[in-house]
């Protein structure tokens, strides 16, 4: 448990609504959910950008690049010669959505 300081005026105001600790916990939870939701939205936008560029989803792309040399050659010649750089970003956004979604679920289920 971490101890933090809050402005007295907020402590006084929150006190008028009931227990200060309960109100503060709820405020922190709401803020955290808002931040995670914004993060997921940004990552989803990035993942969708790569899906549009490569005309498939992340999982399909990784599978086809590793198993279909014709597809890989076509990507390198027609879409992006340095697709490996995009793949790092795409992996981060794809898996990042999963990471944050799991964190969100754990907060909501508390």
């Amino acid at each position: 448990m971490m101890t933090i300081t809050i402005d007295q005026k907020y402590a006084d105001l929150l006190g008028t609504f009931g227990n200060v600790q309960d109100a503060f916990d709820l405020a922190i939870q709401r803020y955290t959910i808002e931040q995670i939701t914004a993060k997921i939205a940004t990552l989803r936008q990035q993942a969708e950008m790569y899906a549009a560029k490569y005309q498939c989803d992340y999982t399909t792309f990784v599978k086809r690049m590793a198993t279909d040399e014709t597809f890989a050659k076509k990507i390198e010649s027609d879409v992006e010669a340095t697709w490996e750089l995009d793949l790092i970003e795409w992996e981060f956004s794809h898996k990042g959505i999963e990471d944050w979604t799991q964190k969100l679920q754990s907060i909501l289920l508390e």
Partner: protein
Amino acid sequence: MDPKIAEYFARITEEANALLSDVVVTTDTTPDRSLLRLTASYGSCRIVVKEIMTVDERHYSYYILRGSSIEAGFDNSPDPEAIRLRYGRIGGEYERSYVPHLHTENKRRLQLTDKIDFFSFLEWLTKNVPRT
């Protein structure tokens, strides 16, 4: 960010600033992984680095670009040519295989490598690419 990953990223930034110019580094993080993006100049070459780290995995792409040409690129992406070189064939069982390799001559040549880090990449860069 995991403290060990934060330390590794800080060392990358420090080394890049010592050897490269126009260095720009950004990072992003989730509860389980961290991403580093670095761009820089090395003579007339552009250096583009992207690296994802988790506690037990590291995926990287270290590229040296000259104009629109790829001077060299180290990565461990699931590249079919690298998978074929490593395992003798490609197929679904290798789709999650991150095989470290090096592209040269604008990707006309590919050779397998050991898994490298940014510091080995910098060493290779300064030994093999003239700063012109």
